[in-house]
């Protein structure tokens, strides 16, 4: 009976293995497709995709100009820090010289290095197992990990460092006993350290232990000789380079690389990253853990794998530093991938175990794909989406004189070949630890020396508090007024300056229209009985609402979410007309988003075109029933005495507002109905220059379009 089962197992086994292979390769193919699509979208995006990109391109520009990037002190501007050794910025120098400052060159370098890292890991597995499937799976698995997908098309140092360190590991794994292999490997490992200093742990440690355990026929003295030679080469060369650079930069190298890099450590960050890693790569983590116990004595490359895993884990733990990102997990991703590939190769002669491994890895790839689509892909979309806003922001930066303070979009300056004045996160960390005196910068902010300051707001996480000290933030808000909100970035301009003149008002209005648009309608508009629902994209209290023209603002005492402005009617000369702005409140609790300048009871307050009134809300007419972020806009004819009509259906009082109360009128209504309708609302099209959003007379959702754009 037992023999029969074995015989049947032997018959079915090869087919099951083939099937499992196909399944894994299909999952991997789809993951590669997602990787490629993500990379293509990211590669040629003009603007920065990450806070850390601009400083590196800025460093490349300065290196190309023959300047030092490691200043020994920050007592005078520019307040910039070069956190990493110079190899990556140096690799961008030829591109910067040839094409000017750009992000694509650095991103292409990173992407190619990611692919190279996958190849080197695959070669390490293949070199000692000759298992093609395991090698291919290792290489592709790396490219399926969300941290790698997200980081590979960024102009950041990490992927170059990973490629150099995995290349070093491959050389030492392939030619462990030759002098040439030793030197090449050592040089590659040194190059990795010269790209990112944290790569000085895992790969060199793995190479050292690997050499120590090589060729057991040799005496321990000989074996340890090779390992010590590698350690001496890597350690000695790195130290010599460090000292040389430190002398040349008069201590600036140490200050930038070490002093300015020791940020506050937060255990909560480590726990959060661990949770995310567990959710995304649970099977890889189990395989990594199992390999720690299973590999010694069973797997040929255990002495390379285990120290690499342990070293990568220790490096990854530094993710607890404030300001760190998932790039701290890139080396751990490589180590886990290597562990998976190594165990897959080891299981080749154990058919059922191999089938299990192949199926588990296929499921792991699925889990990684899900994490990639929910993480890096969504993140990338969020960065690419506000194209028009980014262009507007670039225009604002372009037309502003130096110096400009910026955080997330400091790269707008870099793109215009203008040096960075500040890296706010880095200097804030130094100020928090008492290593940098911010007095001069605060004085400059208070003196309004900056024509614009850009402060970025991430949704759901107050990252600006890590990037700017509380003193800087209060100096900015006291001396500067927020004038624009573009791509989640607040544009601050000095209070008292001619704010309107510098605003790209034409981009906020339809060409030739007498009034500007009251708000952004990224998601379209809802046209109903001559009242507009203008739908902005974003959460409540984010999308600004502006005055459409000069006028006198009124906010009655019972108006929680609405204001109205009286204007000279540009369409019916000699008459008065009101623009009405409603639903500027939270749909949950009715919290008003109207700016404090216009409290309830305001009457006849002069306002200028484009003046900020508040932010779009989700108010639907009753609390606890929020709807999509929007602005309720209407053009209302004034009464004979010029006042605002009190009996406006659907406008006031808001508490009684209900969409059912608003009569739906067909486009071609009877003249009598139309007259009655005009009594409380006018067609806003002539005022705003927009296209009416009615299809066959039925009000409906349409994109917010200007009349000129109609074919």
């Amino acid at each position, binding site marked *: 009976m037992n023999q029969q089962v074995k015989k049947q197992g032997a018959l079915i086994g*090869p087919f099951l293995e*083939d*099937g499992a292979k*196909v*399944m894994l390769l*299909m999952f991997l193919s789809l993951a590669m497709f997602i990787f490629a699509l993500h990379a293509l*979208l990211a590669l040629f995006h003009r603007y920065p995709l990450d806070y850390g990109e601009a400083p590196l391109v800025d460093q490349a520009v300065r290196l190309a100009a023959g300047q030092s990037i490691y200043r020994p002190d920050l007592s005078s501007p520019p307040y910039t820090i070069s956190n990493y050794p110079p190899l990556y910025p140096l690799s961008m120098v030829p591109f910067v010289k040839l094409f000017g400052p750009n992000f694509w060159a650095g991103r292409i370098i990173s992407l190619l290095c990611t692919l190279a890292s996958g190849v080197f890991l695959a070669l390490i597995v293949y070199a000692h197992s000759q298992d093609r499937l395991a090698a291919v799976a290792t290489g592709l698995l790396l490219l399926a990990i969300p941290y790698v997908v997200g980081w590979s098309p960024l102009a950041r140092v990490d992927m170059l460092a990973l490629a150099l360190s995995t290349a070093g590991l491959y050389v030492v794994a392939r030619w462990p006993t030759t002098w040439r292999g030793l030197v090449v490997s050592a040089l590659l490992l040194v190059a990795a350290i010269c790209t990112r200093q944290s790569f000085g742990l895992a790969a060199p440690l793995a190479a050292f232990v690997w050499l120590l355990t090589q060729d057991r026929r040799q005496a321990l003295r000989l074996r340890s000789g090779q390992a010590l030679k590698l350690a001496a080469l890597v350690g000695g060369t790195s130290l010599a380079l460090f000292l040389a650079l430190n002398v040349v930069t008069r201590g600036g190298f140490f200050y930038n690389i070490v002093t300015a890099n020791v940020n506050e450590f937060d255990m909560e960050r480590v726990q959060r990253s661990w949770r995310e890693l567990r959710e995304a790569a649970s099977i890889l983590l189990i395989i990594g853990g199992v390999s720690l116990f299973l590999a010694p004595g069973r797997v040929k490359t255990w002495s390379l794998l285990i120290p690499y895993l342990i070293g990568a884990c220790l490096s990854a733990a530094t993710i607890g530093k404030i300001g760190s990102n998932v790039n701290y997990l890139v080396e751990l991703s490589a180590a886990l991938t290597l562990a998976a590939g190594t165990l897959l190769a080891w299981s080749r002669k154990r058919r059922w175990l191999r089938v299990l491994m192949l199926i588990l890895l296929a499921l792991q790839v699925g889990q990684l794909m899900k994490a990639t689509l929910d993480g890096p892909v*969504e993140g990338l*979309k969020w960065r690419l*989406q506000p194209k028009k806003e980014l262009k507007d922001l670039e225009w604002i930066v372009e037309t502003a004189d130096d110096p400009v303070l910026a955080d997330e979009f400091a790269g707008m300056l870099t793109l215009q070949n203008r040096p960075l004045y500040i890296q706010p996160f880095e200097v804030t960390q130094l100020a928090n630890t008492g290593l940098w005196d911010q007095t001069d910068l605060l004085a400059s902010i208070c003196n309004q020396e900056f024509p614009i300051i850009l402060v970025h707001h991430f949704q759901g996480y107050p990252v600006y508090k890590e990037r700017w000290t509380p003193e800087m933030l209060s100096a900015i808000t006291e001396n500067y007024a927020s004038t624009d909100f573009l791509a989640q970035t607040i544009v601050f301009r000095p209070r008292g300056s001619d704010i309107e003149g510098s605003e790209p008002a034409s981009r906020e209005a339809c060409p030739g229209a007498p009034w500007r648009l009251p708000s952004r309608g990224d998601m379209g508009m809802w046209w109903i009985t001559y009242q507009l629902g203008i739908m902005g994209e974003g959460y409540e209290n984010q999308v600004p609402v502006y005055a459409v023209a000069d006028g006198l603002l009124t906010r009655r005492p019972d108006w929680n979410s609405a204001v109205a402005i009286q204007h000279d009617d540009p369409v019916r000369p000699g008459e008065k007309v009101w623009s009405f702005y409603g639903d500027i409140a939270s749909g949950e609790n009715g919290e008003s988003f109207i700016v404090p300048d216009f409290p309830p009871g305001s009457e006849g307050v002069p306002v200028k075109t484009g003046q900020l009134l508040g932010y779009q809300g989700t108010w639907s007419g009753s609390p606890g029933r929020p709807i999509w972020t929007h602005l309720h806009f209407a053009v209302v004819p004034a009464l004979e005495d010029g006042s605002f009509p009190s009996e406006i259906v659907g406008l006031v009082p808001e508490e009684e507002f209900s969409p059912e109360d608003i009569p739906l009128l067909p486009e071609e209504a009877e003249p009598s109905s139309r007259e009655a309708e005009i009594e409380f609302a006018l067609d806003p099209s002539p005022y705003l220059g927009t296209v009416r959003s009615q299809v066959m007379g039925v009000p409906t959702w349409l994109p917010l379009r200007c009349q000129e754009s109609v074919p």
Partner: protein
Amino acid sequence: MLDRNGLPIKRDPGLVVLAVALWMLTSVVSFLEILTVRAIVLRIYAHFAMTYGFYAREYLAAQALGIGTLVVMAIVCMGVAIGCGEYHLNNFGQPQSWKLFAWTIAAEVAILVLPLFI
């Protein structure tokens, strides 16, 4: 079917039933999976689509993509059913025939499982 010597090949009736059943199963499932593949394609597209809504450009593109996927998958499935049928007929009982069954079933299982992750 005749062997090399021109004599009729003796086939195990059980294996014939198994092979026919597997071929029919894989063919039918491949046609049923046309919609699953379309769902996978559209879900990935939706993850990368920048804007949403009935009037978004991406909506029309998604419609075209869905129809394109249906056409391509219909051709692929017919190819699988006819091509695999021919292959199994010519290589009945051979390891490569069972191997092709294993590949087809694995691919179909993978297609069924993939939407769980996308």
